[in-house]
């Protein structure tokens, strides 16, 4: 396979390491030097050619090739088996409704939250359990980081360049999780988002940092979910009132109570949709009286519809915790789900003799 990228000769791997840092081509952490061999291995595993166009970032009219994504994936620590997920995540991010330029340039400072659904999780050894939002396994760690390095290098989303985040949050280093599908009777997030049953899929959401909640004092579904809804209301009042795709991560201790009571993901979403509402007048409690402007009775909902809530089953077995993952900017950037490796009109390559 022929690659088109410029190459550089460095005397040692540690000098290669410093070369990338000195050019501003990293997130500050060590990278794996991207050799042709490693990059080609990624491309071959994913059955794509180097020049395959994965998409175009529309604002800056930047065409994004499989080759550049593979170089950044190798740098992030990806093995070839991780690369199809990186490709799928970028395919999703390049859908217009994701609004990639806005999400990555904004002072709002979001990260790209990535959820893996279906068999690919097991194939990659991704864990949906303990420490699922803080680095639970190699696969989710490197996939999340591959997205960040690709943004930095391909789209110049470095702090002070395109990235103008006032604060940002640590999910920018890596913000990828797998659902704990073995620990739940619920449908997968991919299925809930319209993918075929049992297909592997990846969902991307431009998102803030997780806001953790705790309720260890009830087994009643409504009461458990009231804590999640309260946290969404807090985000609406203190951060941004606009409706959008929220994600909620429900670990096993809470989930067991919900499932035992017969609640589905859709039931959860319906309940939250009803409860995550605030009136504009409540801005007076949070320092924002200046913008009520006589319209205090207007009610706002965190979700335009129940389907806008991404309900995620993940987390360790013990602890009455959960998390809200807020959207970057209301409905202007949408969660996007795409299947992984579901190539319906292509054939596998001929096996070489």
């Amino acid at each position, binding site marked *: 396979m022929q690659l088109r990228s410029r*190459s550089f000769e460095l005397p040692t791997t540690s000098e290669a390491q410093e070369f990338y840092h000195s050019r501003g081509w990293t997130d500050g952490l060590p990278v794996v030097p991207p050799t042709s061999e490693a990059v080609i291995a990624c491309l071959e595993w994913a059955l794509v050619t180097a020049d395959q166009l994965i998409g175009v970032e529309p604002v800056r009219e930047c065409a994004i090739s499989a080759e550049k994504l593979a170089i950044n994936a190798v740098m992030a620590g990806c093995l070839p088996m991780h690369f199809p997920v990186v490709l799928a995540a970028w395919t999703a991010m390049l859908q217009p409704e994701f609004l990639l330029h806005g999400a990555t340039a904004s002072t709002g400072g979001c990260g790209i939250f990535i959820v893996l659904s279906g068999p690919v999780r097991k194939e990659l050894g991704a864990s949906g359990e303990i420490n699922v939002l803080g680095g639970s396994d190699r696969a989710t760690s490197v996939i999340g980081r591959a997205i960040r390095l690709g943004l930095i290098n*391909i789209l110049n989303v470095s702090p002070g360049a395109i990235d103008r985040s006032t604060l940002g949050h640590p999910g920018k280093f890596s913000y990828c999780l797998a659902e704990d599908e073995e620990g739940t009777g619920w449908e997968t997030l991919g299925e809930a988002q319209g993918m075929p049953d049992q297909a592997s899929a990846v969902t991307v959401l431009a998102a803030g940092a997780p806001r953790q909640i705790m309720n260890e004092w009830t087994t009643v579904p409504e009461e458990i979910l009231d804590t999640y809804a309260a946290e969404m209301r807090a985000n609406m009042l203190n951060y941004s009132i606009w409706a959008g795709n929220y994600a909620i991560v429900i670990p096993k201790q809470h989930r067991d109570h919900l499932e035992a009571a017969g609640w589905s993901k859709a039931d959860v979403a319906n309940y939250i949709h009803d409860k995550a509402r605030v009136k504009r007048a409540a801005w007076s409690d949070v320092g924002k009286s200046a913008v009520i402007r006589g319209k205090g009775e207007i009610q706002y909902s965190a979700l335009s519809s129940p389907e806008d809530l991404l309900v995620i089953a993940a987390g360790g077995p013990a602890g009455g915790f959960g998390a809200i993952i807020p959207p970057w900017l209301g409905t202007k950037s949408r969660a996007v789900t795409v299947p992984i490796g579901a190539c319906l009109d292509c054939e596998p390559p001929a096996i070489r003799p």
Partner: protein
Amino acid sequence: MPVSVLDPTTEAVNLAATSAARLGSLQGTTIGLISNGKEGTQGFFTHLKRLLHDRYNVAEVVLRTKHNYSAPAEAAIIDEIQNWHAVVTGIGD
């Protein structure tokens, strides 16, 4: 041991584009203003519109507002640009 490594950045140059010819004068022209839609642009563009009329004798100032301040302008606005002699855009907060 020497190692050969690859450039992770975008090397392709964007399609060539050339700047339009500069206007000799604003007198009698039509000028478009494209707001990104943020609240702070309202006062700024209102003032700019007045200046263009009063100080530079611009014939017409057309104000358009993007629907989404983080996305490119809608096609309808882009199409309209050809009717203007010059356009002012940028970010506003």
